[in-house]
C-alpha cells in the first residue's frame, strides 16, 4: 500500500502556483488553527516583498495575540506597550521620513487602551499605515470583552452577553477615524476567503503606496475571527463572522482619496 508517498515529479518550476513569501520566517505560528492572523501577516509581507521595500520597512507590533508578530515578519520591528504602537510609529516615521512604517494592532490595543494614540496619529496625518485586526474579543488574555464586542455577544467578562446599558456600546473606530482630516485612505476588509484575502491585499498595497506618495495616514481594518475566544470551530467562527460581524462592521472602503 503506497501511503504518504509524494509524487516528486510534479515539483517543477513550471508547476509552481503558490509560494510562501520569503518575508514570512519559517517560525511556527503560535496562532490557533483557524485564526485569521496568519493570513493577514502573510498579506502584509507579500505587499512588502512585491514593493521591494524590506530594507526600508519598520513594523510595530502591539500587545495582544499578535504581540509576537516580529517572530514571523522578516523586517525590522519594534514591540510597543499596549496601545502605544501609533506613538512609536510616529517617532519612527518623524525621524525616518523615507522609511515605510506600519503598525499591526488588535481591537483591544487600538480601540480601547490605545484610543488616544490612534486618534491623534490619524488626526495628525502621520504618513504611516495602521493595520487593525478586529475580531471583537481579547484573544491573548483568554476571551474577554473588547471595545468591538457586539451587543449581546458573550465573552468571559460578558458571560451573559454584552449588555450595552451596563457595558457600553461597541466602538466603530474605523468610521470614527475616517472623519478626521489626517486620514487619507480608510477601508475595512476580511481574509476569510481567497477572494476576500485578494481584496484585502489590494487595500494593503494601496496603503503602502500612499506612504511612498506621502499622502498621510492609511487605515486598513481587517474583520477577523477568533474561534478559540468565540468558542466555535473555525468554520462556525467564519460563518458567525459573516452573519454577525459583517452586518455591524460592513466591508468596503470608508474613505477613498479623490483621484
Amino acid at each position: 500500500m503506497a501511503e504518504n508517498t509524494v509524487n516528486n515529479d510534479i515539483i517543477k518550476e513550471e508547476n509552481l502556483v503558490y509560494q510562501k513569501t520569503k518575508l514570512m520566517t519559517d517560525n511556527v505560528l503560535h496562532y490557533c488553527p483557524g485564526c485569521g492572523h496568519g493570513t493577514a501577516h502573510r498579506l502584509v509581507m507579500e505587499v512588502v516583498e512585491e514593493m521591494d521595500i524590506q530594507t526600508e520597512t519598520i513594523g510595530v507590533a502591539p500587545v495582544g495575540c499578535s504581540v509576537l508578530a516580529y517572530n514571523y515578519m522578516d523586517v525590522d520591528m519594534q514591540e510597543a506597550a499596549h496601545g502605544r504602537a501609533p506613538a512609536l510609529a510616529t517617532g519612527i516615521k518623524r525621524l525616518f521620513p523615507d522609511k515605510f512604517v506600519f503598525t499591526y494592532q488588535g481591537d483591544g490595543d487600538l480601540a480601547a487602551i490605545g484610543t488616544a494614540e490612534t486618534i491623534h496619529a490619524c488626526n495628525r496625518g502621520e504618513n504611516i499605515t495602521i493595520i487593525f485586526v478586529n475580531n471583537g474579543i481579547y484573544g491573548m488574555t483568554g476571551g474577554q470583552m473588547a471595545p468591538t464586542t457586539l451587543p449581546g455577544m458573550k465573552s468571559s467578562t460578558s458571560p451573559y452577553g454584552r449588555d450595552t446599558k451596563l457595558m457600553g456600546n461597541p466602538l466603530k473606530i474605523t468610521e470614527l477615524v475616517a472623519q478626521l482630516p489626517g486620514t487619507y485612505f480608510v477601508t475595512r476588509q476580511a481574509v476569510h476567503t481567497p477572494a476576500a484575502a485578494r481584496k484585502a491585499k489590494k487595500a494593503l498595497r494601496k496603503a503602502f503606496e500612499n506612504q511612498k506618495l506621502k499622502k498621510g495616514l492609511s487605515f486598513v481594518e481587517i474583520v477577523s475571527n477568533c474561534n478559540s475566544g468565540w468558542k466555535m470551530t473555525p468554520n462556525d467562527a467564519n460563518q458567525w463572522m459573516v452573519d454577525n460581524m459583517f452586518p455591524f462592521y460592513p466591508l468596503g472602503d470608508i474613505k477613498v482619496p479623490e483621484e
Partner: protein
Amino acid sequence: MKELRLMKGNEAIAEAAIRAGADGYFGYPITPQSEVLEYFMAEKPEERTGMVILQAESEVAAINMIYGGAGCGKKVMTSSSSPGISLKQEGITYIAGAELPCLILNVVRGGPGLGTIQPAQSDYFQSVKGGGHGDYKLIVLAPASVQEMYDFVELGFELAFKYRNPAMILSDGAIGQMMEKVEIGEQKKRLTDKEVKEKYPWATTGKDDNRERNIITSLDLDSVKQEQFNQKLQAKYQEMEEKEVRFEEIQTEDAEYLFVAYGTSSRICEKSVQLARKKGIKVGLLRPITLFPFPKKRLMELAGQVKGMISVEMSAGQMVEDVKLAVEHTVPVIHFGRMGGIIPSPDEVVEALEQKFL
C-alpha cells in the same frame, strides 16, 4: 571666545539639545517646564539642524514616540514635570527593558496628585528607584545650576548611549525657572542616517542583506531567559556604580558634620555651611551629582570622619534612605526638609543641625 547667555534652566535644556546634535524632542506642556517645548518651537531647530520637534497628545504618547525614535538609534529626548513623569513611567520601564538610550528631563513640582507648581524634590523615589514596574534603573543626573542644566544634556546623552539605558535629568521648578549665565557650547553635527546605521547595529534602521532583522522588545516569555536578561541589566547597573558616580564636596576636609543635598537644596546648604562655620560649627556638604549611581563609597568614608549627617531635601525624606543605607548605621543620619513647594532657608537648615547634633 566663549558665548555667554542669560537663560532660564528650561531654555538652556532646549538649546543644549539642539547644540548636542539631538535628532528629536517629543513633549507635552506642563508647568513648570513648558518653556522647553516653547523654546524649541520658537527656535525652529528643523531649520538649524534638522532636529524634529513634536507636541504630542499626552505624556504617554510623548514617551512612546521617544521609544520609537530611540529604537531607530536616534538621539531623542522628552521633558515633563512630576505628574507627567508619573504618566511616562510605563514608557520608561519599556525603554529600560528594551535597553534603549534616551534623555528624560523632570522639572519637579510638589505633589502628591496635582499638588503645586512650585519646586520640590519629592520625585527622588520615582526617579532613582525605577518608578515603573520591574527591576531597572535610570542614570539620574541632578543639576544645581542653569549651567549644569545645559551641560548635563550632552552628558546625559553620552551616558545613555554608552550603556543603552534611559538617562534622567532630575531638576526642579526653581532651577527650571531661574535665569543664570550660561556658557554655550559649539554646535555638534547630527549623525546622518548612514552613520546611525553603522554606529548602532542594534537599531531598527531597516533590515539589509548583511544582518538578521532587528527586533526592539522587552518581552521574553521564557523565565530562564528573562532571568538571564535581568542579570545582564543588573551587571550593567553594577558597572555604572563602579564607573559613573559623580559628586561635589564643599569644605568636607575638616568637617565634623555633613549636609547631603542635591539640586536646589545643595545651593541652600552651601549658604548654610558658611553660616554654621561663622558660628564655629565645622560642617561640610556632599552634593551627589549622580543620584543613581549614588556616591555610597564616599559617604561611607565620610561616616568615619563626621559625627552626624543631615540629608536636606525638599521632600518628606527620600534620599535620606539611601544615605542611611550607604553608611550602614555607622553614624546618625537625619532628614531635614520642607514640602509642598517651599524651599528651606539656610538658617532653618543650620537650626536643624544645632537642634539635632549640638
